[in-house]
């Protein structure tokens, strides 16, 4: 997938997240993109590690910054104490329109992720993405084992919250499989 296609998917994801009531801060976009890769298997290969608030990609951060430098994205500022949101600019919308046809095939996957994660806050996304990371990257699928591992990696997430997040992650994975059948 070339850079223009990848950027179009990212723009589509941000638009769709906003339509589904996401705050669309960088953290929300990071977790949604991680889920898009890991749940739907869209062939984008941002490298994710466990970092700020769960799964995090430095490549994706660079790309979001680059897209701001290219005026495809801009920041929407909110009153204190909340952080900013990223929005698709006029140039971004023109860019999306130009290239959308090439990546239209991925629209259902983007909409699925946006619908399932759009309404969630940072703390919940952190828990779910960390659980998903442990399941998919470390192969730990048992909810108790996964919760223990999440708590080990992120001690500020309790075992109970981690277990609930694991069950949520598995439920979303199953729902996507069912949607594809």
């Amino acid at each position, binding site marked *: 997938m070339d850079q223009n296609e990848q950027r179009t998917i990212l723009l589509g994801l941000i638009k769709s997240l906003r339509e589904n009531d996401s705050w669309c801060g960088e953290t929300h976009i990071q977790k949604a993109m991680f889920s898009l890769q890991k749940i739907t298997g869209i062939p984008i290969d941002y490298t994710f590690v466990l970092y700020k*608030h769960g799964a995090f990609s430095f490549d994706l951060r660079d790309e979001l910054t680059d897209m701001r430098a290219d005026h495809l994205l801009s920041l929407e500022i909110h009153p204190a104490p909340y952080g900013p949101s990223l929005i698709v600019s006029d140039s971004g919308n023109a860019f999306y329109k130009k290239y959308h046809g090439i990546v239209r095939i991925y629209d259902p996957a983007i909409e699925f992720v946006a619908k399932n994660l759009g309404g969630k806050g940072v703390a919940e996304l952190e828990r779910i993405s960390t659980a998903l990371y442990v399941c998919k990257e470390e192969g730990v699928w048992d909810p108790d084992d996964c919760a223990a591992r999440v708590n080990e990696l992120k*001690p500020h997430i309790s075992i109970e919250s981690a277990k609930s997040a694991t069950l949520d992650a598995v439920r979303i994975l199953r729902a996507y499989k069912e949607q594809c059948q």
Partner: protein
Amino acid sequence: MGKIFHEIRDPIHAFIKIDDDERAVLDSRPFQRLRCIHQLALTYLVYPGASHKRFEHSLGVMELASRVFDIVTHPNNLTPQIRELFPILEIPEKRAYWKKVLRIAALCHDIGHLPFSHAAEKELLPDGWGHERITRELIFSSEMCRIWDNMTPHLNAEDVAKLAVGQRKAPDLTFDDLTAILSEIIVSDAFGVDRMDYLLRDSHHIGVAYGKFDHYRLIDTLRILQPPPSGSEEERSKEPTLGVEVGGYQSAEALLLARYFMFTQVYFHPVRRIYDIHLKDFLLEILPDGKYPIDIEDHLSFTDHEVLASLRKAAHDTSLPGSEHAGRIIKRQHYKRLYERIPADFQKNPLAAQLIKDAAESAFGKENVRYDNPSSKEEPIEFPVLMKDKSIESSRSLPQTLLQISPVKMEYVFVSRECWDDASRWLSDNKHDIINS
């Protein structure tokens, strides 16, 4: 009896004190090699004062890391939530261990740098390699492990490596909340001391004021904080990160502005960039298979000195490989800027600069054209701010100077000076058609 502390004079931090264990690191081959690695590659050809080396920068990073550690882990500066999260910081031996690891990691964070630092690193190392990976290899080398083992207490090489390269460059290592915060002290986007030292030091040597900021005030007000809310719900993540007390907010702004100005005025200076490109072209021709050695012994014996000696020789002997590119550097016959991205062109066509590059290559030959598109990448302008009433807010919701800082991105098309006159006329006649094609 030896000295307990050794003092080293430094133009930025006055005196840097090191103990015997740190002296052993200083005296090691990997660290001494940094005396021969220019901090800013060939920038001294544009700003003659920029001849400082990674050696003194690494000492500066250690000094600042140590100051930040003392501030952010001081019991008076820990909120109850952070204290609960890091009980280890209240055990004196543990606190001393991690401070030592942090200082050593800061000292070693650049030991894997190639000759001329970042210039051409990406193209000249095999896939999957960067200077951070070489740093890791060196930290785990038998030579350095002997030093870690001789220290009191012994240092774990993996702890040193984690803090020295951070999570981005060590995705295979597991970071807990403590090691994540400590590595942030060195390499973080917002308040990493690597960045603080290079801005201050580069400005000092180059002779510009752009990179200066009140680092004393900033460091005194740094804190480990939970992040600000993001989203309309009340729930927030509890993951700790480096932030600042509101009293230091202007110093934090000054740091980020300093970075912005240094990128626009110094690091992305077009002549500095084209010298990097000529150096890369030269190295591609002279290195075996066009790649730097990644073997540790080869790495340790390869510095700017060896490259400069080859450059000088090749510049004056056209039979030697790389002679053309060496001459461009040594005889100062670098390519000249034909085109620089401007907003109006970019609005018309985001690919404007690349199209001009392609058209120029067709018109004047690939060998006479070079394209460069540096960007500042990481976006460090959101961080938690501890307010007077102990609430935590996003830096983005406070007075909005930071909002005016755009990510820095440039695009340049260079042509050889022999065809610059023709190319300039050609571009003037054809730019509109090229961009609108």
